[in-house]
């Protein structure tokens, strides 16, 4: 019987998400939930690059720029307004506007792939330097704090009710809900005609334009949607740690996202989530047990994957499953 993966995938994801959100908070310790929340936030960030790079073929080295902009826009808005409702929207809209402007010049100027990588990385580093050296900057009542970042960020509150703030459990459930919704939404976006044209452009941009599709527009929209998702991840990240600092714009942070997506598998969604979660878990564990420097391990993981598993975890697992069932099928015929 042929299963309909287009429906089963998102349905299973939503079901697992709901079950986890309901059961986990009453089963595990709070600190485990806090750790899991971090993995979930990083998974959302990984999904944003999985869309832009994995499906759109746009190698954006500065995805963390949108993540950081989202985080900062949210925190600055929250300190000024005291109610998180509008700041959450700001954390999504500000990176979108920024991406629309940057993307307009990148795509309508027909900038080549390599230059696009260099420019996006530079933009991220410029933001890093700007915030890092801006100890004296103030936006409204929010002090940017330069190198120290902005500590003591209050939690997200129920829309319109600043006194009703999210607990650790609530933050976990909200982040997980966001992850599931974004995963399912991306799934349907990629199955739509828009998503299939985006994949076609990655495959052969010339042919796609000769068929009458404006590749510049499709890439720009993909870029802006990716920025919105990264911005939301930034909001949830600032909420998770009650803190936002300039390191979110650093080269380390940008590189990390690329490694998650690559390890998980380019052109997959679930792979990006797995890549981000596994690598975050491994580096956190190594770091807290002082076994090895997490950066060196991250570098080794990257090199091993580039050389040995270039397709990434998810496509590799799918290959193994396929050959396993083929082997079973053939041995079944023999006996």
């Amino acid at each position: 019987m042929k299963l309909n993966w287009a429906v089963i995938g998102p349905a299973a994801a939503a079901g697992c998400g709901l079950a986890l959100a309901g059961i986990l908070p009453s089963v595990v310790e709070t600190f485990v939930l806090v750790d899991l929340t971090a993995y979930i936030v990083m998974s959302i960030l990984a999904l944003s690059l999985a869309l832009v790079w994995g499906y759109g073929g746009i190698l954006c080295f500065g995805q963390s720029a949108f993540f950081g902009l989202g985080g900062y826009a949210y925190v600055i808005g929250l300190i000024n307004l005291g109610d998180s409702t509008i700041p959450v929207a700001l954390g999504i809209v500000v990176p979108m506007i920024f991406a629309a402007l940057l993307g307009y010049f990148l795509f309508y100027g027909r900038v080549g792939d390599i230059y696009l990588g260099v420019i996006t990385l530079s933009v991220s580093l410029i933001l890093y330097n700007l915030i890092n050296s801006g100890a004296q900057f103030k936006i409204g009542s929010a002090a940017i704090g330069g190198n120290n970042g902005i500590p003591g960020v209050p939690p997200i509150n129920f829309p319109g009710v600043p006194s009703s703030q999210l607990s650790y459990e609530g933050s976990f459930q909200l982040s997980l809900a966001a992850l599931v919704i974004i995963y399912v939404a991306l799934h349907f976006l990629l199955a739509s005609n828009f998503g299939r044209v985006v994949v076609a452009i990655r495959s052969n941009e010339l042919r796609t334009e000769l068929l009458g599709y404006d590749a510049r527009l499709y890439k720009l929209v993909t870029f802006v949607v990716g920025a919105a998702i990264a911005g939301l991840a930034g909001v949830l990240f600032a909420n998770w740690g009650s803190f936002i600092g300039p390191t979110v714009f650093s080269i380390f942070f940008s590189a990390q996202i690329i490694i998650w997506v690559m390890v998980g598998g380019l052109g997959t969604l679930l792979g990006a989530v797995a890549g981000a979660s596994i690598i975050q878990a491994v580096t956190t564990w190594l770091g807290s047990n002082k076994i090895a420097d997490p950066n060196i391990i991250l570098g080794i993981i990257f090199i091993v994957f580039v050389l040995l598993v270039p397709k990434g975890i998810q496509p590799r697992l799918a290959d193994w499953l396929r050959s396993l069932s083929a082997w079973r099928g053939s041995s079944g015929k023999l006996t």
Partner: protein
Amino acid sequence: MHAPALSDADVREMTNGPILRTVGLRKTFGGVAAVDGVDFALAEGELRCIIGPNGAGKSTFFKMLTGQLRPSEGRILFRGQDISRQQRFRISQLGVAIKTQVPSVYDDLPVKENVRLSAARKQRPAGVRETVHHVLTRLNLSNHADRLVGELAHGQRQWVELAMLLAADPTLILLDEPTAGLTRNEVERLAQLLREMRGKQSVIVVEHDMAFVQMIGGTVTVFHEGRILVEDTMANIRRNTQVRNVYLGKR
């Protein structure tokens, strides 16, 4: 500013003049003129072949017609509208489809999806399914519908690209060396297909295969060193000493 008044000839051209016309079309690459002043006209529903030795400017001419290259000088009029400075996707939207010299297809996507992407540009989903089915059947590709295009032989990939063109239902079709990699039978099938299109769609074919050009008939344009050398029937062109000298490299 006043727009110049339209003459009778202008009006005639806009209504039932040639579907495609180029005026003094030139393209230079660093001082070398690949196309050097081409005045070309194609009637509605006409099937035209362009022949000429390598480097005669045929592919450059096609690239300008489809917006892949900007002309250095001159104009391209498609149904009276100047398209010489248009983006390539805009020209495609006007109804010009091209099969490039090296097949430009989606190697990592199934045959069906290649054709679907073309049909879906201007059709609703229900119509798309029907168009894809119809085109795949017409070009004998139904058996390969689910295979990745990258797995197919060169000749089959030519058919896939042709299927993509037909699925878009264009008014002007440009084919750059469509017989490359085709078997003798396939060449005959392609000639048959093109003959069927005559009168319904306008087609320009760039070809080296003289037997094929003879097979589809009609007017033949000979390019040489970026210019049009002669325009005539294939039978007359075979007798033309100037053309023979060009192909044999004499001056």
